[in-house]
């Protein structure tokens, strides 16, 4: 049965930011993209690099030579090992969206008051009634 882990306090991750957490032995990156939270395994599906430690960036697109545009700023993650680009919202590789994706975890925002009823597992910090928290089920 899935267990509910409190991964971080929602206020810990600003828009455009991320936090690396360790839950039940798994390294997971949590990202705040324009107020929505997404979580990806910190393991690149290509060669196992620490994906979530890469640059958070946009995606370079073009209509042809000499046309450079950066779109969807803050929605992509570039693996620090080989530069592969992943959509933070889906975990999909930009180059191989159908066959290559980073493991994704659902993130829920829950109020401390609800969490106080339990059961949950908070690994590293105290959950307060008045706060909002990011919850991942594994």
């Amino acid at each position, binding site marked *: 049965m899935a267990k509910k882990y409190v991964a971080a306090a929602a206020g810990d991750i600003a828009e455009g930011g991320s936090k690396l957490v360790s839950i039940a032995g798994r390294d997971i990156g949590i990202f705040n993209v324009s107020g929505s939270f997404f979580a990806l395994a910190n393991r690149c599906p290509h060669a196992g690099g620490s994906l979530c430690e890469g640059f958070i960036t946009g995606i*370079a*697109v073009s209509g042809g030579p000499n046309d*450079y545009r950066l779109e969807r700023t803050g929605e992509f993650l570039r693996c620090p090992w*080989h530069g*592969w680009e992943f959509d933070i919202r889906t975990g999909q590789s930009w180059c191989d969206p159908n066959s290559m994706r980073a493991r994704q975890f659902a993130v829920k925002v829950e109020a401390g008051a609800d969490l106080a009823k339990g059961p949950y597992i908070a690994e590293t910090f105290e959950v307060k009634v008045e706060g909002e928290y990011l919850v991942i089920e594994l």
Partner: protein
Amino acid sequence: MKLPFKGAIDCDVHLAMPPVKTLLPFMSDYWQDQIVTRYIDRSSFALMSYPSNSPLSGRADWRAENGGAMPGASLAQLRSQLLDPFEHKIAICHALHGAIALYNEDMGAEFCTAVNRWVAAEWLDHEPRLRASILVHAQNPALAVAEIERCAGDSRFVAVLLPVMGDSPLGRRIYWPIFEAAQKHGLSVCVHAGSTFRNPPTGTGWTSYQTEDYIGQSVAFQNLIISLLAEGVFQKFPDLTFVCLESGFTWMPTLLWRSAKAWRGVRAEVPWIDRNPASIVRERIKLSLRPFDAPEDPDIIKRIFEQINCEDMLVFSTDYPHWQFEGDNTLPDGLPQELIQKILIDNPMASFPRLQSSTRAHARVTQEVAS
């Protein structure tokens, strides 16, 4: 293996370059005077990538039939050694004249014009099975475009000819006017092995031996494909086909693999490459059959073909009069049977859009003459 049927389209046939005096009547008075009074007519203008005494440059038995002279020097030879015995439907001939290496771009362009006029008057006018590429002096793209425009009205010219090693990588924007003109007129771009020796033929410097230059040509073709990809030529000119002549092609699997691998990591630098570069190359690059650099084991050949996935890429070439095969065995042994029709006819027709119209035009002329 012999050709299994007649009517093949040979995409790489070389005309032996004539002495300069043969070209003089096709030049302006000024250049005729310059070339004679400066003794420039004493130069052979042989492109040093293909020294005429090298055994590879002319098959020995064809040379012997010509009394030791370079084969491909007359239409009679071309007919008796190639067009008639192999029953070609069409042969696309290329005049790799050394003038493309001249630094004086006006003189170079004049020579190219003379060569093209000579090809039309002495070859195309007399043999309906022949088509030709337009020789241009690419150092000055504006002059090259002018020559393309001058020749474009003649549908027997089906391509623009460029050497694989010139002043700069061919994908660079400085060459785009040439590609634009070619695309506009439905001409393909034939890139042939050879260097103008503006740069050393290797990335690390000058070689000692001609052998190195010749083997290294295949590396130059890899550089060409990478340049066309990275510079975005395929996106900029969506209707232009590039035909690699005397390139070899069994090196292609590793190039495609490496291009695809690098693209995944660094594509943001060249964002116009919007899909796997291997699929772009497969659609836009054509490769000539000779030289064929692989063992004769059909199983190995089959595996290579599967790796390249090249059934639409290969076009038939004999590379006449270069020594690429013995006797009548124009096709490499072990060639997949199901690809032969495509390689001999379908792929060449698709690679040179002008073959459709020029074939029709010839049929019309023949009909008119007959009636």
